[in-house]
């Protein structure tokens, strides 16, 4: 099936109109595996999974579509739809403010934009500083330029540091239901102990450094702060 992604995308959309969501997903997955992606592709995959009652994967693709300007708002609508369904099923958990703050730093801060702002301030500050020294010698101009440049440097260092720190964490979506969250990997949890459970469409923060130590298991933290280990196969990384 060697075709242009747009042609395949159109065919997938046709399958969606025919309510053949499984076939549509097959086509969309083929495009995704070719390495070419787009916001509408992820958004339509999210809808297809939603109609196949796979809330986890629907949420996963809606989250992915929010990274594109043209589908950012629609993606948020999709996530809201999934959350509505989770509420009706009694599996929705609200996010604690402290973890919301960390999630913003890790995943929503847009480290690149802050780095670009830092570079802009640095360049502007240096130009003002040099002008204050050479072309229009004025101590106040030079100090102002230096302050702006230092602010730019601080912003760059902070943004790059947070970006590197955030690289140790990934956001993921749970794609299976009733997954016991275990205190240790490879541990058989007694059901009588009623362990915390992860449900489909839970967005989780995954600690990559810890997860790399155990094959097939990942260390996650839920939005309500509950953390532990679940099988790697039950999470899709954003």
């Amino acid at each position, binding site marked *: 099936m060697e075709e242009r992604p747009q042609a395949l995308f159109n065919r997938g959309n046709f399958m969606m109109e025919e309510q053949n969501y499984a076939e549509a997903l097959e086509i969309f997955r083929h495009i995704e595996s070719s390495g070419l992606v787009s916001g*509408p592709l992820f958004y339509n995959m999210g809808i297809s999974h939603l109609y196949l009652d796979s809330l986890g994967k629907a949420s996963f693709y809606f989250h992915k579509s929010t990274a594109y300007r043209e589908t950012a708002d629609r993606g948020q609508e999709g996530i809201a739809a999934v959350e509505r369904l989770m509420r*009706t099923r009694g599996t929705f958990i609200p996010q604690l403010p402290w973890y919301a703050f960390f999630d913003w730093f890790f995943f929503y801060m847009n480290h690149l934009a802050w780095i670009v702002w830092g570079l802009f301030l640095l360049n502007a500050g240096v130009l003002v500083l040099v002008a204050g020294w050479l072309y229009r010698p004025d101590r106040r101009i030079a100090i102002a330029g230096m302050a702006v440049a230092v602010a730019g440097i601080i912003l760059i260092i902070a943004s790059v540091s947070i970006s590197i720190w955030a690289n140790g964490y990934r956001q993921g979506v749970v794609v299976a239901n009733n997954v016991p969250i275990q205190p240790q990997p490879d541990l058989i949890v007694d059901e009588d102990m009623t362990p915390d459970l992860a449900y489909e469409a839970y967005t989780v923060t995954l600690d990559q450094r810890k997860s790399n130590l155990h094959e*097939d298991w990942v260390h996650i933290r839920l939005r309500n702060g509950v953390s532990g280990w679940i099988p790697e196969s039950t999470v899709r990384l954003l």
Partner: protein
Amino acid sequence: MRSITKPADDLPSSSTPGESGQMLFAILFIALLPAAGLQSAHASDIRVSASVSSTHIAAGQQFTLTVEVQSREPRNVSNPELPELYGMQYLSSLPQTSSRYSLVDGIAQMTYRFNYTLLAMESGSYEIPSVYISVDDREYQTRPVYMRIRPSGDDSRPVTRRTRRPDMFLELELSEKRPIRGQQIVAEIVLYFRNTIEVNTFHVTEGWQTEGFWREDLNRSPTRRPESVILDGTPYRRAVLNRYALFPTRAGELTIPPFSIRASVRQSGRFRDDHSAFFDGFGQQRNVDLKTSPKLLRILVPPSPPSDGQLISALGQFHVERTLSQDVVKLGESVDVITEISGTGNLGLITRPVFEYPASFDTHRPREVIERNERSPQMSGSKQFRDVLIARNAGTFTIPDNTILVYDDARRRYERHILPELTIEVVRDPNARITIAQDHRIRLTPIRGSVTWTNAERPPVWFSWWFWFALVIPAGVFAYGLRVHQYQKKLSSDDSFSRRERAMDKATKLLKSTSRITGTKEIYGIIHKVLSNYIADRINLPNAGLSDRQIVEELRKKNVTQPVIRRVHVLLEKCATVRYTPYPSSRDLMTNLSEARRLISDLEAEI
């Protein structure tokens, strides 16, 4: 050394309880035929055996008689009835008793053991008669044990025929001589030592690199106590130090390298013999380095498998079973297809069986768990493959049957394990009040039309050129600005630096101004002034009151080269003397002006 392992049940004399009244038993046998099945089931479960630690022993030496009862479940076992002995005697009629419960390949086994210490009295061939033992109020008997007692200090075999062995040596003993690829070989590192030697401790001196073999450590299996053996007529103690399971990973000739240990030993016997080469003093403790001989094995290729099954590289005695974690699952829930391979063999090398699953299931990366039976003297246990399936549609689905091929190394043939088909019922969650299909509040419409395609991979920002460009540019501008700023600052604050830096400009400007002057003598005066002022500025001298001689002297102090000094001296003198010349030549003037420019340029490089 175990001399008899055959259970008493196999013998006609021990297949029924008691010995008397065989005729009566024959009649009773017919009468009680319905009960015979029960009795035989009871009897087949119990194995009774007797063994001695050594069947060849010298008079005066001690040895152990072991009576063992094995059963699949706990039994009421009484002490054995000891037979009368000839040529030997019991040192104590009370046995050392032990009982052990083990689970091997999923089969429970209870072992009761009675150890009696005996003393060999007279030389000759003797028989230890059957030992009677009562198990659950039924009587069983062992087979007789035959043994030979030689005179004390005498060896029955001629010395010439005997292989001379050292007092202590290390041997690698393998369970298989001609293994096939992937077959389990139990390798035991065995220490043989004479009775006069005490082994206190030992440690492995070199890592054992068994290239070509996948190795598993079996040292957690129960340790055996040293036992007495006779090697070429010489009594030795035999102790298994380490035990490994080796699995050849390729066919052909493979060599097992030597295994090296260092043992701390002591000569403790009442006598010493000719072979006591390790010691130079009675009772002295020594460290002895020992190693096994390398062993060459010819690994055979397994026969071609039949085509009607799936190979999973299993080799040994295995049982294969496939089950579901649950038969009924809710939509969206995961269900595990558990394939368990249990038994003895190459557990670690077994690969995951591949099954066909209905398209309505999402399959995820399977999990793999090995549970080893640590107490087993060989590699045994179970390996579980759990395929995680997530149901996406409600309904009843079937996973088709499958045949797994396992090569049984004992029977030397492939065994077929048929896994029956499995049925999964996927139901909608009754607790979910609403499903997607019924939820009309969802108003999400797919995006159609032309879209912009991008590459999925987005490299980090520090891999982009503009990031580094935007960092380098301000750094360069800053460095340039700082340098210029500092230069300007020094020019305004340091007079001597300022005079020195501006001397050239000042001199060039004055020399250019001569073009507007017509008087030749005046021009010579300017050349003199330019040259003397330039030198004064460069070497920080006062501009006024300097004689030509002083200027030349200062140049000498600054190590200016002699030809340049001479040229300066000549030009200054010319400027001084030309005032007294009535009509100085204008050609000379031009030459001297050029000389003044050259001199300033030359002096710039030297002072």
